[in-house]
């Protein structure tokens, strides 16, 4: 059970879109923007409020990669592994980040909730390959060394 404030926020978001079945996706997108993830309890709550089954809401939320039921770190690092980035050696960058942060294919977020590392298939910035983003900011022509400097910089901000 989440704190009451989560449900109040969810109510606000539901009201802003209308209590309609078809508003499911915009509602859960807004919830995810608010908390950087989609708390499972809120998905069930929204389903009930807009009159669809929990199983159906879960079906929609798992269909899109974008929704995450796991809390994410403060810095979400997306390493592009599209064709262009891949051939220009994006994997060593990912491997470096995994090793440096103690993450893996199945563990995406550091225990201190500072970093989340994910891969994406293409960021549409192939000319800058290999590329990664940190919370929407694009870092072009990366190398493992540059990624190390970036981590130090982000940690320094804390």
């Amino acid at each position, binding site marked *: 059970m989440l704190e009451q404030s989560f449900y109040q926020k969810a109510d606000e978001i539901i009201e802003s879109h209308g209590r309609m079945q078809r508003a499911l996706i915009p509602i859960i997108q807004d919830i995810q923007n608010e908390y950087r993830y989609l708390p499972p309890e809120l998905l*069930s709550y929204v*389903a009930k409020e807009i009159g669809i*089954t*929990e*199983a*159906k*809401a879960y*079906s929609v939320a*798992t*269909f899109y990669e974008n929704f995450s039921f796991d809390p994410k770190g403060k810095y979400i690092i997306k390493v592009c592994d599209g064709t262009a980035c891949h051939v220009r050696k994006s994997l060593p960058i990912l491997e470096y980040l995994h090793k440096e942060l103690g993450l893996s294919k199945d563990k995406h977020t550091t225990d201190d909730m500072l970093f989340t590392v994910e891969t994406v298939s293409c960021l549409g910035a192939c000319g800058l390959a290999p590329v990664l983003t940190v919370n929407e900011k694009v870092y072009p022509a990366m190398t493992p060394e540059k990624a190390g400097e970036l981590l130090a910089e982000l940690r320094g901000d804390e």
Partner: protein
Amino acid sequence: MDFITIDSRCVPLEGEKNLLSVIRKAGIDLPTFCYHSELSIYGACRMCVVEDERGRVFASCSEQPRPGMVIKTNTIKLQNYRKLIMELLLSSHCRDCTTCHKNGICTLQSLAYKLGVDAVRFTNNKEEQPLDFSSPSIVRDPNKCILCGDCVRTCAEVQGVGALDFAFRGSKMQVMPAFNKDINDTECVGCGQCRVVCPTAAITIKKDEDRVWEALNDPNTRVVAQIAPAVRIAVGDSFGIPKGENSMGKLVSALRRIGFDKVFDTSFGADLTVYEESAELVERLTKNENLPLFTSCCPGWVKFSDYKFPELKENISSCRSPQGMFSAVLKDYFKDDEKKTFVVSIMPCTAKKGEALRPENHTDGVQDTDAVITTAEAARMIRKAAIKFEELDEEAVDMPFGIASGGGVIFGVTGGVTEAVLRKICYDKDNNLSELSRIEFSGVRGLDSVKETSIMLGDREVKIAIVHGLGVASQLIEEMKAGKRHYDFVEVMACRRGCVMGGGQPVPAGPKTKKARVKGLYKVDTGSQVRTSNENPMVEVIYRDIIKGREHELLHTRH
């Protein structure tokens, strides 16, 4: 009249909604997994593909028939298509056919055979998933799921429950409850309709046979069976007996051979239910309270109402179901016996397994029904015992519960409970049976989703509704709550057509089987010497000698 051409033959169009229906009407039984006439069109399995004169290949289930169409259903191209699709389905399917519950009655297995798939070239790279044994009614085995979505649509569209849905996508797609919870932690009512439509063994009946075998082999246990009305017209399916034929006598004989000490008919329990429920209706009408009265014999409906309409708690009849009443009476009847009594009920229903576990169906904290096995399980037990069912002589059930009325038997079909209760009330009123045929034709029979009728009781008109399928029931109740409909008595059956198409009946059951089962049960009623529970002489005897004023303790869930 408009025509289309199917494999060079002219076929008239008679308002069919999709091409597949026209093709099937023409005598070509195109294979399908995801098409069910009672569900929405899904078009996922692609088995029903056909080819038009331009060589275009498309699924016939989701195509509207247009006059003048020229269709081929059996070209080499189509054969190869179907075979490849089948091969792909099989490649990600757990193929342990020899040890599978569905062995011999599996649609996937039989289509693989029909299409001549003799090798599967692809390896299964799906991760193995754990089975879900959490429900007392059904077992989920995701490894056998072919993603046809039949269970998903049945649960949501017909039953209005929606406990299951697809999750994830692409090669990771699975059918599961939200967050992959145990099915028992969802709103699943255990009706088993998902299992009826499942073409594989992804959803099967939770087996309770083993506990029954153990009891049968224990010399210190008296094992007593009660057989529900709808079992008798379906159990024969497994032994080549014509669909819908009454096999009660053979079943009684088979159970005795297996080792049951006593065999009874749940229709007798239904006669008790008629007594209690009609009295309850008359009482509520007199006091004008807690109306409408909803029936309580269907455990799927009772569980559905628990979470969906908790405000109706007082409106639902306090009567136990026929199973519950009869088990309590049986336990009481044999209570002085030296041996332990083990009551087995044989039901067309998977939800009954859950009902037996509910504390309000226990007497003094003791579970009255020790094991519930479905028709399908009973058939399997008979097969296991190597009994030649079809050659058995018919035997009668045991005394003192040996007589059941036709009214008790038709509990197994939608409208039957109402008809039986009306027979009792009218008999009490006029003391003759001239009303019988009038009741029969008053609108209680038939397969409309909602049936309405009314009778005069004194100068009061008693309005009655009969509904089958929880989805429709749910809509009806919403309309009642909105004040659009008013009734005094509402019969609800969770499954479409009632118990004859319950979740525990043998599968597969197509449209012809469904029809034959309904007809078969009414035929048993017509052939009964005793049509109403009042005429059943044993009911009086049991009230006098066994129940002795303890109706509330033995026959009701709350007092």
